[in-house]
């Protein structure tokens, strides 16, 4: 008993010393294991790269980052958020994981008033009437890329499109977003369970439906498996495949040539140009020996956004309301790798959405920008938000 006691005391001292060194305490949560692990890791690496490039400081204050794995489980994510907010008393929460995890954390985050910056999900529930002054979505509202894809499908005049997304909130929002601006008919919409790995049944259905095009949202390992299996079934190349958050910097290294021809709607990719993007790509590749994904880009943006916001307050982040207002204002001041960026009234980005395509580049493949269906696109829910 005595031994346990002394261990606890030592641990408490360690934490206290760790805390005393940093002026700004950042809690970071993301899925860092399992099929979505790469997505979480990229957000973290991007965020840490921003802080490193700022010499370990945010807004001139020394910053400490506490990292937690949400395992893509809402209950684990909520526990992590509770630990970071109540026990560690972080000044700001970054990451917040997938939509289902984000939504599990939202009530606690709202109640605590702690500034939270999601670097992956942008649920509809916090974009519309449920918007909160202290909750930001750095990536965009979930719908954005799929709305752009819907417009692209419209421009391409695909008459019958088959839709596929995992059976959870974000999956449904993605498909709803696609259908919002798409005037053609939907051949069918299918919702496999989240993290399903074998899509043989769905692929047989697609084959039987003979659609003009396919629209998919299958993040992480799901997307890798699906594209591989489509290729094995001889369907890839016969049906145009439009995707969001499926074929990107995290999955392309595994897919390589198998993904050739697949379209991807996104607000950023390493194929994007611009001074900030080039600088970021170079720094990321030098530091982590790989090409950054859009998740890494968002993590990097979040670090730079916080830097500007905290500098605005001269490092005094104790007033949570003022901190949230500073973050919102910083949205149009920091230099985003995405180019033009600002927060809408509902704390969701107003930004451009592009369509990229996987193309051959020698023996390897790369993404190439093929269209920008919408510019400075606000989400479809901001009118319902009462924030100014």
């Amino acid at each position, binding site marked *: 008993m005595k031994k346990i006691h002394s261990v606890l005391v030592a641990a408490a001292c360690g934490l206290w010393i760790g805390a005393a060194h940093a002026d700004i305490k950042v809690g970071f949560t993301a899925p860092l294991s*399992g099929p979505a692990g790469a997505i979480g890791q990229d957000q973290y690496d991007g965020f840490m790269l921003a802080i490193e490039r700022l010499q370990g400081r945010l807004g001139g204050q020394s910053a400490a980052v506490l990292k937690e794995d949400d395992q893509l489980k809402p209950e684990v994510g909520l526990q992590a958020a509770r630990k970071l907010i109540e026990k560690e008393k972080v000044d700001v929460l970054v990451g917040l994981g997938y939509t289902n995890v984000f939504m599990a954390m939202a009530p606690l985050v709202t109640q605590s008033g702690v500034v939270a910056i999601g670097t992956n999900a942008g649920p509809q529930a916090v974009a519309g009437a449920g918007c909160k002054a202290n909750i930001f979505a750095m990536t965009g509202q979930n719908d954005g890329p799929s709305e752009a894809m819907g417009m692209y499908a419209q421009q391409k005049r695909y008459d019958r499109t088959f839709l596929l997304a995992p*059976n959870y909130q974000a999956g449904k929002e993605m498909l709803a977003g696609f259908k919002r601006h798409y005037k053609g008919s939907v051949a069918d919409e*299918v*919702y496999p369970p989240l993290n399903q790995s074998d899509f*043989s049944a769905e692929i047989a259905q697609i084959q*039987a439906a003979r659609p003009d095009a396919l629209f998919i949202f299958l993040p992480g390992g799901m997307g890798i498996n699906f594209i591989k299996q489509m290729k094995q*079934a001889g369907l890839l190349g016969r049906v145009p495949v439009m995707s969001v958050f499926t074929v990107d910097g995290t999955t392309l290294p595994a897919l*390589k040539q198998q993904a050739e021809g697949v379209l991807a709607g996104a607000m950023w990719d390493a194929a994007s140009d611009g001074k900030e993007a080039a600088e970021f790509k170079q720094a990321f590749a030098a530091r982590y020996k790989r090409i950054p994904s859009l998740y890494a880009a968002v993590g990097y943006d979040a670090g730079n956004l916080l830097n500007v916001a905290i500098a605005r307050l001269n490092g005094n982040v104790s007033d949570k309301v003022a901190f949230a207002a500073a973050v919102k204002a910083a949205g149009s001041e920091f230099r985003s790798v995405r180019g033009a960026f600002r927060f809408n009234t509902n704390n969701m980005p107003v930004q451009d959405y592009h369509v990229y395509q996987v193309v051959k580049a020698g023996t390897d493949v790369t993404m190439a920008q093929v269209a920008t269906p919408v510019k400075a696109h606000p989400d479809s829910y901001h009118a319902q938000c009462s924030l100014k």
Partner: protein
Amino acid sequence: MSLTLFIAQLLNGLQFGVLLFLLAAGLTLVFGIMSFINLAHGSLYMVGAYAAAVAGAKTGSFAVAVAAALIAGVAVGALLERLAASRLYRRDHLDHVLATFGLVMFFNELARMIWGPQPIFISLPESLSGTVALLGFSYPSYRFLIIATGLAVAMASQWLIRRTRWGMLIRAGSSNPDMVSTLGVNIGLLNAGLFTLGAALAALAGAMAAPILSVQSGMGDGVLITTLVVIVIGGIGSVAGAFCASLLVGVVDTMGRSYLTLLLREVADRDVANAAGPALASMLVYLLMAIVLAWRPQGLFPATGRPS
């Protein structure tokens, strides 16, 4: 709902089923005969998949990849039996669960340390990456190879159990292990052999699944649960039961995923069906298990004479 689609889905169910059988055969032997609950069976599946991916990437040969998976399965399985499992046979089931659950975490973390959180990738040889035209459908030829492998293993295991001395001991061991050891059979060696065989089958399943799925840490966890459902439905300790239950679960799961939503749309609103269909489909194998257990609490084909 065309007939060709139905046949394609049946094939998909069959393919999933035989893959489950490769896992369930080993698990049910170990469970039924040694009464040892091995939650780390899914980790052996993962070991097989990683071994196949690494060897496949090095040599580019699918045959070498499968051989590597089998060797890795035998090696890791034998080691696991010697170091961990053999010390636990005489202990309580709860101890088995705790120890092997710990092993699952150990293997997952080890895989993450060695290969990182990113899934790794194995490509199919050119000769297997084609498709077979089937009543206007194209079905991946590789999936036929999985079906053939599973059926071959099923036949081999039937021969092993019904026709060989070893099989007789296995059957006897599953009914009354104490009597078998009283008769002078080295039950320790029999156990080690069985455990290793089970591990090799799990690794083979991993190698067969690797080109379809992404190879990553924790890939065995989800499929282990389905495998446990299979052996409970089939009857613990029975390989024939595991075979029938694997096909049943494979087909029911696949059919549920492809047809349940469509069926619900006939009786309910499209939005309701879209919401309820996938949710019900993912519950279907558990419902199946509940129905089977209500009807036959020992499973469909319980190993005969097993003391309850």
